[in-house]
């Protein structure tokens, strides 16, 4: 189309006054298919009101008697020395209309029509129609992007409400007309068959029928108002408009060329717009009906979600609603819409849904609602890794899903729910994009932190642990948490031991010892987690003892560890102690272990007492006679004593 000329036939009318007239009227018109009454109707219907600054251009449309669609430009201007009976300057309107299909062949702009027809003095050559050639659309400039304001205005027009542009007083007529063209280039060309706009409209003419107009002030009507030179990026709050804006911004590489090719006449009714959006794969005519599915069973070992705990809180099934683009979408509707877009050909324009979610994310949801959202996320696999969308968009999607469907911050139960929603078993790590959205390093629940960081990778885990220097008590508490599933507990225990062992010599040994005493030196925990791996148990316990007491165990320590007042020693614990005991203390260890398993073991009270009576007295549990006892001195920085490896 670039530089090409397209032949057109223009019918015309001249509106104004003779010098003896007081009122405006149709002065002349062509003798084509459009009759005089139709010209009067359209000229008054799309009047911009009383204009102060001239010339101005109004664009409009009309059908002829055969329902053929015409696109029109009306040029309003005065003529030197032409005054009416009252001595007032006459504003003439030269009106030219061209069959829409002739213009569509070249995607001819309003500006091209104005430039060509502006040269005609009407009525001077009789009533014949005008044969002219109009320049086709040059298409988008290479690398040129539509302005943000034009994109917004194009989207706003899909709401069905007029759009008023303020603040363009100093922009020239050509600039304003080209802006109207730019806006219309962002809509299907066929919509010009129902478009009305003006480079200026009187702000006190509140009843005009223009869809898009420049003005000095807002009129008393429900117009969208934008300000010249100030593109607004806020959400519009209308489903079609937000979807379309999102599509224009990121949905297609060259929307202008695509839209210029859609030339069938179409209007601005919401039903027609819905069809157009569906055709462009921007939106869906029917909002997906969202009903609450049956509650999912809690995953094995996971605590039940609040919704499952109290079924009475569950959201009632939302009935399917008729499409109403002006109604704000609910979170379930947005989630399902996101899922549809992700399944579609080009899901990058799910931005509009994300904007809607963003607006709703600030409102905390109840437990039942969160459970409902989680079910939708799981069913539609919204946490899946294989999305063909840009990474920042994916990150935003995950972040918003986590915000609306889970508690903030995430606790361990929610972390498990994320696993379930992502379709991952507990022994499978979450994928990296989702983990980054969770941002485990910033989660206050240490279990979530450690599990997330571990899933992110060794490097991230080590880096964070090195930075944080977690208190030993916290690490041990996380490791023995009864809420953890076995796979997660193994991960947390191993991280805790390896982190403490890494910090050997620098860790607060007193605090660690206190924590170990409180939890039976973790012997029972390891026995539960690794029942078939006694060597691994012994190895981990050995590491913990090393960090706490150093390379060698004193007799008092042996008594403390194996003779724990509440927890029976395990064989791996005994093995770990033996490996660290002086050879002279081995009998002590053996006797203490024996008394420990009998005293705190499985025997009922009477048998236990009988067995203990058979053993030597308690004071024979001392260290070997060849060694003097040593006192355990907690290590403090700068005081020399360091445990060895």
């Amino acid at each position, binding site marked *: 189309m670039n530089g090409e000329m397209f032949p057109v036939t223009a019918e015309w009318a001249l509106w104004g006054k003779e010098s003896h007239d007081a009122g*405006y009227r149709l002065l002349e018109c062509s003798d084509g298919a459009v009759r005089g009454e139709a010209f009067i109707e359209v000229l008054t219907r799309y009047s911009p*009101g009383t204009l102060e600054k001239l010339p101005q251009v109004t664009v409009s449309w009309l059908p002829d008697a055969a329902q053929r669609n015409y696109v029109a430009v009306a040029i309003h201007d005065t003529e030197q020395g032409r005054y009416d009976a*009252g*001595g*007032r300057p006459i504003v003439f309107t030269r009106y030219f209309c061209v069959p829409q299909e002739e213009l569509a062949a070249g995607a001819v702009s309003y500006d091209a029509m104005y430039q060509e027809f502006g040269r005609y003095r009407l009525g001077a050559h009789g009533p014949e129609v005008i044969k002219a050639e109009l320049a086709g659309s040059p298409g988008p400039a290479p690398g040129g992007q539509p302005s943000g304001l034009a994109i917004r205005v194009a989207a706003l027009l899909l709401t069905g409400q007029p759009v008023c542009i303020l603040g363009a007083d100093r922009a020239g007529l050509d600039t304003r007309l080209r802006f109207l063209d730019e806006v219309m280039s962002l809509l299907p060309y066929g919509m010009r068959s129902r478009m009305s706009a003006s480079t200026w409209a009187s702000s*006190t003419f509140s009843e005009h029928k223009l869809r898009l107009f420049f003005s000095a*002030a807002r009129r008393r009507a429900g117009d969208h108002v934008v300000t010249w030179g100030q593109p607004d990026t806020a959400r519009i709050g209308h489903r079609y408009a937000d979807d379309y804006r999102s599509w224009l911004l990121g949905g297609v590489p060259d929307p202008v060329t695509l839209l210029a090719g859609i030339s069938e006449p179409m209007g601005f009714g919401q039903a027609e717009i819905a069809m157009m959006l569906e055709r462009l794969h921007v939106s869906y005519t029917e909002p997906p009906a969202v009903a609450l599915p049956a509650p999912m069973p809690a995953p094995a070992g996971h605590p039940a979600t609040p919704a499952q705990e109290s079924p009475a809180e569950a959201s009632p099934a939302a009935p399917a609603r008729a499409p109403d683009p002006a109604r704000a979408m609910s979170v379930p509707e947005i989630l399902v819409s996101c899922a549809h877009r992700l399944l579609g050909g080009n899901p990058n324009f799910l931005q509009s849904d994300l904007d809607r979610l963003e607006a709703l994310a600030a409102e905390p949801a109840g437990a039942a609602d969160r459970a409902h959202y989680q079910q939708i996320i799981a069913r539609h696999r919204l946490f899946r890794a294989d999305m063909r969308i840009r990474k920042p968009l994916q990150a935003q999607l995950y972040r918003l899903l986590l915000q609306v469907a889970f508690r903030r911050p995430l606790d361990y139960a929610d972390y498990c729910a994320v696993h379930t929603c992502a379709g991952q078993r507990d022994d499978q790590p979450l994928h990296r994009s989702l983990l980054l959205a969770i941002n485990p390093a910033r989660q206050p629940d240490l279990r979530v932190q450690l599990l997330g960081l571990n899933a992110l990778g060794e490097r991230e885990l080590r880096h964070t642990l090195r930075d944080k220097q977690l208190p030993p008590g916290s690490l041990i508490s996380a490791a023995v948490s009864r809420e953890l599933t076995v796979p997660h507990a193994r991960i947390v225990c191993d991280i805790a031991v390896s982190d403490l062992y890494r910090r050997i010599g620098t860790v607060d040994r007193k605090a660690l010892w206190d924590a170990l005493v409180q939890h039976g030196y973790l012997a029972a925990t390891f026995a539960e987690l690794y029942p078939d791996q006694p060597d691994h148990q012994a190895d981990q316990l050995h590491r913990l003892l090393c960090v706490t007491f150093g390379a060698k165990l004193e007799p008092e320590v042996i008594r403390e560890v194996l003779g724990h007042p509440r927890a029976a020693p395990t064989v791996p614990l005994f093995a770990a102690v033996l490996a660290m005991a002086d050879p002279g203390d081995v009998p002590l260890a053996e006797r203490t272990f024996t008394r420990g398993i009998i005293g705190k073991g499985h025997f009922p009270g009477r048998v236990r007492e009988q067995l203990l009576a058979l053993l030597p007295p308690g004071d024979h549990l001392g260290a070997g006679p060849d060694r003097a006892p040593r006192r355990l001195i907690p290590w403090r920085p700068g005081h020399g004593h360091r445990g060895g490896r």
Partner: protein
Amino acid sequence: MPPSEPARDYGITMWGASSTGKTTFLAALSVALIRQRGPWRVIGADQASATQLTRLTTGLTQRRTFPPATAAVEHYRWELVGMVRRAARRRWRWLGWRHYEQLVTIPLDLVDAPGEAADQERAAPVLWDGLIENMVNSGGIVFFYDPVREFENGDAFAHTFGVLTELSQRMRDRADGRLPHYVAVCIAKFDEIRVFETAAKLGLIEEEAGDRRFPRVPGDEAKGFFEQLCDLSHSGDAEMVLSLLEQTFRPERIRYFVTSAIGFYLDPHLRVYDRDNYQNHLPPQDDGEPARIRGSVYPINVVEPILWLSQSISGEAGE
């Protein structure tokens, strides 16, 4: 109000044939209030109306040109604001009345339609419907009767009858059969030679109080003057306009004013009205010239009809 009656917004619609001076009348309102030095001034109630108020007023005063012909139904949301002196009975009645000043705001929702809208045969449907619909929803009407136009065209009755017939049809559910509007009948262009001389010949002129001594037709003579002017019409139909108005509206809700938006010329050096040099309107000498205003504008009876209408409407609304 009967349930079938549409809600009215107590606006005021300017009604008259083309070129009878409706927009010029509105443009002169601000000047008239300033010249009166009374308590009232007019302001815009929204940005659009404020902009138009400024544009119309400065066009008349600075450029001394008449406003361009109105092309569509324009709505002006203005307000009359002023400190009004009020009186209240004191607690101890024997002390008499206590006086105080109170800020009063009277909304002026004005509708200015092009004159051709009142011609059902020629007007585009959208213009005709716009005018009628606004009149239906108005509480007051300023009816412009231009004696010069009537003398030349003789179409006042035709315009009036068409509009009132349509208006009556749309509001036919009224219990008393009359339309409820307050109507200010403005006999316009009093400054025009033919109108002024007619009034003078009829002996209806009196001198205005004050230094400038502008001539005027007293309020109680305005209706009589209107009747006389109607009798002078060549068409022979104009006399029916008065009857038609009084049959359609409640007579007690009609008032007559002899008005001029631009007033009489005042020599800036003499500062006194000159009976031999009073024409302020400079009509075009030929087709290629605009009409102009010769000197400063001194509106006559521009404030009075608007103030009466707005006070009547708002008083009724408050009842």
